């Protein structure tokens, strides 16, 4: 569980977002949406402790996130940033880095660590690539490998910045289904998506950011009826008879 309490974040002293309060619950997929530059990534990075808070606090699993040790925090919260390095290592080696917060000083992988890496690779469907170099993979393939690394951390909370970027449409749907099933298993999944219709389709709860503030944190159905998303994005949001959301120009 990740709880934002009156959080203000930004760069330097000028806040990008002020006074944000909402809770991303266990067993739920929470999606941060908003127009470009509204602070989605900033808020996610602050939850991952990558950015100091200007005010307020963030609770992870009921404890102040600032009070965790580095590795203790990494065992509780995985973070997949938008910008990632592409070192010249093979897929298995990259996924194994997800065990880093679990390793002791000798940095030695135990059998349990290797099992966790295998499970994560199976889950993301990258086990067959284990000997391939990360640099030979396409952007979408790398994305899946990085997600496998995040899963390998075996944390209760996943913070993902645009995890479906680079993926083609069928893989986007597969990924969102997978994240939903992870949430169903009890994990807290918080992610940034820039596609409103997809967010509406898959999220359990949507945090709508705009104008430096949180406009709403509601389940998709309620957000739809409030009309807020249409207003903020400046598009028409529709729901087809089968329940599928889609956007169209106003």
């Amino acid at each position: 569980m990740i709880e934002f309490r009156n959080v203000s974040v930004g760069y330097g002293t000028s806040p990008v977002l002020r006074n944000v309060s909402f809770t991303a619950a266990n067993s739920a997929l929470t999606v941060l949406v908003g127009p470009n530059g509204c602070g989605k990534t900033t808020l996610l990075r602050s939850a991952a402790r990558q950015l100091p808070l200007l005010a307020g606090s963030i609770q992870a699993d009921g404890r102040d996130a600032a009070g965790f040790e580095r590795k203790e925090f990494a065992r509780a919260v995985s973070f997949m940033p938008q910008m990632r390095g592409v070192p010249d290592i093979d897929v298995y080696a990259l996924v194994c880095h997800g065990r880093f917060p679990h390793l002791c000083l000798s940095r030695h992988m135990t059998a349990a660590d290797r099992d966790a890496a295998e499970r994560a690779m199976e889950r993301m469907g990258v086990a067959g690539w284990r000997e391939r170099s990360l640099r030979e993979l396409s952007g979408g393939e790398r994305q899946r490998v990085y997600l496998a690394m995040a899963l390998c951390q075996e944390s209760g909370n996943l913070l993902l910045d645009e995890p479906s970027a680079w993926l083609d449409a069928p893989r986007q749907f597969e990924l969102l289904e997978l994240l939903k099933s992870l949430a169903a298993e009890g994990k807290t999944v918080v992610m940034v998506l820039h596609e409103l219709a997809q967010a509406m389709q898959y999220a359990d709860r949507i945090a709508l950011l705009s104008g430096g503030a949180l406009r709403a944190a509601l389940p998709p159905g309620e957000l739809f009826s409030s009309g807020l998303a249409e207003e903020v994005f400046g598009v028409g949001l529709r729901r087809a008879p089968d329940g599928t959301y889609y956007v169209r120009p106003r």
Partner: protein
Amino acid sequence: MPISQSSCTRRLPTSSAKRRAAAPAALTALLILSVLLSLRCGSQSYSLSRLFQALGAGAADPVRQIIVHVRVPRTLSCALSGAALAVAGVLLQAVLNNAMASPNIIGVNAGAGFFALLASSLLPASAAAVPAAAFLGALGAAMLIYLLALRAGLSRTTLVLAGIAVGGMLTAGVSALRLLFPDAAVGSDAFMAGSFSGAAMERLLPALPFIFAGLALALILAPDVNVLCLGEESAAGLGLDVGRTRFLSILASALLAGAAVSFAGLLSFVGLLVPHITRRFAGSDHRRLIPCSALLGAVFVTLCDVLTRVIFSPYEFPAGILISLLGGPFFLSLLMGGKRGRLYD
């Protein structure tokens, strides 16, 4: 629900994994050969049997005198400086996330050289002061470049240009010191080019603790440096103390580069060339890359030094000249050939 497997099956050639695993053993064998060659060859060459006979002989044997007092210190100096500069290059490239970083290019060697020369000019009696001063100079230059990179968010190209500026100032300082103290032991032409002709245990010994400390620190840091190479945000997300890992890596590279410069002079190219070649066959896992670079650096410098002794025998010339003459074209061919852009992504 697992995500479906892509049908794409571009794989690393299976030979690649085998080659990576075999690299340390092959390099160790190569180093032993180079060391034997370096002990044998010179203005006077000895057969292997004569070499071993001399090592077993009494102190009066003139060949033993040459081996023990000239060739052993010289060979050790070559191997250790090569290993140290190569590992310093590996660490700086990882910390600065810049394939062009090397102790020579970003001014670390110049910093070490300037302070080594200063110590040798002001404290001519104290041999032990030289490596310590060189270490401080190397650390100062490396930290300066790193802080510039951190504060100003310098791009990779700007970082290298900043390094060239810092290196240029320090090199000017070295030239000024050479004019002011023309007799300083460290300030000879041989020192400027990088040479082993004056190698002696008295110059090597004070630097040994720095080299061993630097190598040990580099090996201990290897797994953390691997995580650092995922990018700052991913590394921090995995619980790595990014700032501490970077600082310790810079410290280790300064220990290594400073120590190497203190007895081998301003050798260029080793710290740039060797890590790149090693990555080609040993991969980017620093747990293997660091020892393999150390071995290859040792082999490379030792062999170059042997060549400087035999090409125009009985005359010789500074090894640094040959290293640059061989290293330059070879590095250019690395840049041009193979997968373009690989060095810079």
